């Protein structure tokens, strides 16, 4: 792997449509842009809705927010063929050199869409309580293996009959120790925890201590000669055909 610690951290934000990815990115900009040089790439299905939302939020200079067209394939643009996104990221990195953080928002897609490590160094996966309390339990590559799972809009939980604590517990159980964050934009404490997590990640990336992990699309699985399931994201001692 090439040394990427000299370039800005590339952070992906994935998750189903309507879970609050754009708002979360606006929050990150608000919280971090005084301390870090930032830029954002959005991947909409209908091109620039998310970019416009972010631009109108006034959280970053508009020219630091780029929309990438995905040809109705937001999944492809962050996984199978990341070319359009890489070009957009590189353009921003060149235009606003030196940047510290580039956030890439996926087009709202299904539970199986995750970023390729060829595009991002780390990724958040965003669910929300209004999408149903059982989604964290159902799992999927993003839920189980993204660097951070966010259970968003916890302030809505009483209105949609979802037990946030149970959803966090389900998410944690599916993730084998990887972090889960219950988030509400109206909770300064929760926003502070998100901020801390991202700051720690930026610092670890700079120090060359962060190793990108691939959540991959494949579920953990057993082999006849093994007793523990593994995912392809973890090192393991056998080849696959």
């Amino acid at each position, binding site marked *: 792997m090439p040394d990427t610690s000299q370039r800005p951290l590339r952070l992906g934000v994935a998750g189903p449509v309507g879970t609050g990815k754009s708002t979360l990115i606006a929050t990150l900009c608000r919280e971090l842009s005084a301390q870090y040089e930032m830029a954002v790439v959005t991947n909409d299905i*209908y*091109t620039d809705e998310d970019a416009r939302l972010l631009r109108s939020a006034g959280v970053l200079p508009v020219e630091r927010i780029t929309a990438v*067209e*995905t*040809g*109705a*394939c937001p999944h492809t*643009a962050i996984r*199978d*063929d990341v070319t359009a996104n890489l070009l957009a990221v590189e353009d921003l990195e060149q235009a606003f050199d030196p940047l510290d953080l580039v956030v890439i928002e996926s087009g709202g897609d299904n539970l199986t869409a995750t970023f390729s490590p060829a595009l991002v160094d780390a990724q958040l996966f965003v669910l929300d309580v209004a999408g149903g309390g059982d989604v964290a339990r159902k799992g999927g590559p993003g839920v189980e293996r993204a660097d951070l799972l966010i259970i968003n809009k916890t302030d809505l939980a009483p209105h949609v009959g979802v037990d946030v604590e149970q959803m966090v517990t389900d998410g944690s159980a599916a993730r084998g120790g990887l972090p889960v964050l219950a988030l509400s934009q109206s909770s300064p404490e929760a926003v502070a925890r998100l901020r801390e997590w991202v700051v720690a990640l930026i610092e670890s990336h700079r120090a060359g201590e962060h190793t990108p992990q691939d959540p991959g699309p494949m579920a953990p699985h057993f082999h006849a000669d093994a007793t523990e399931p593994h995912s392809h994201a973890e090192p393991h001692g056998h080849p696959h055909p």
Partner: protein
Amino acid sequence: MDTADLGALLLADARLPTGAHAHSAGLEPALVAGLRADRVPAYIDSRLRTVALVEASAAALTLRLVRSDPSASLRVQDELLARMPTAPSRRASQLLGRGLHRLAVRLWGDHPAVRGMAGLDGPPLRPIALGVVAAALGMREEQVARASLYDDVQTITAAALKLLPVDPTDATAWLLASAPALEAGVAAALLVDDDPTHLPAHTAPLVEQHALDHHTRTRRIFVA
């Protein structure tokens, strides 16, 4: 190792990672402007006789010239820019060209023709990068011309499946029905002489107008 035939397949394969899946070769704005589904074959034919033919000729000429002059891509690029009047058309072509260029630098960074692109003023247009990649793969002019024309048609048919209620088999039939115009385009592209100023200059004003209209829309699925 002879990779000419493999290269021809590769350049025609949507799985080649160049960002091409976000393009519709002008079909999306054409539909917005009123093109009906039953006229898509006529749209394909129009492009094969005009802009797609110019692009295939530029790709074939780039391939021919960079073999002896690795920086010849600059001259062909200038001539092709002059034949691509609108900024959105250029931008779309340059995005695809950059995708191919990125691939070329990673896979054949030491190839003289790939290095020769470094002298370009801006990003390579798609046909220029296509010609250079074809050179790196050892392809023949006929192969790159056909790949260029085929890609134009299949960009339209693939986008049509997203944008229109089309049976995928019918879309494949459109490609096959375009064969006479496509093969005529290959033959015409091979006839260009070595002077880039002599490249054909067929334009399609409506295609350019559509590109301009598309560029200012806030709701679009494809780059162009």
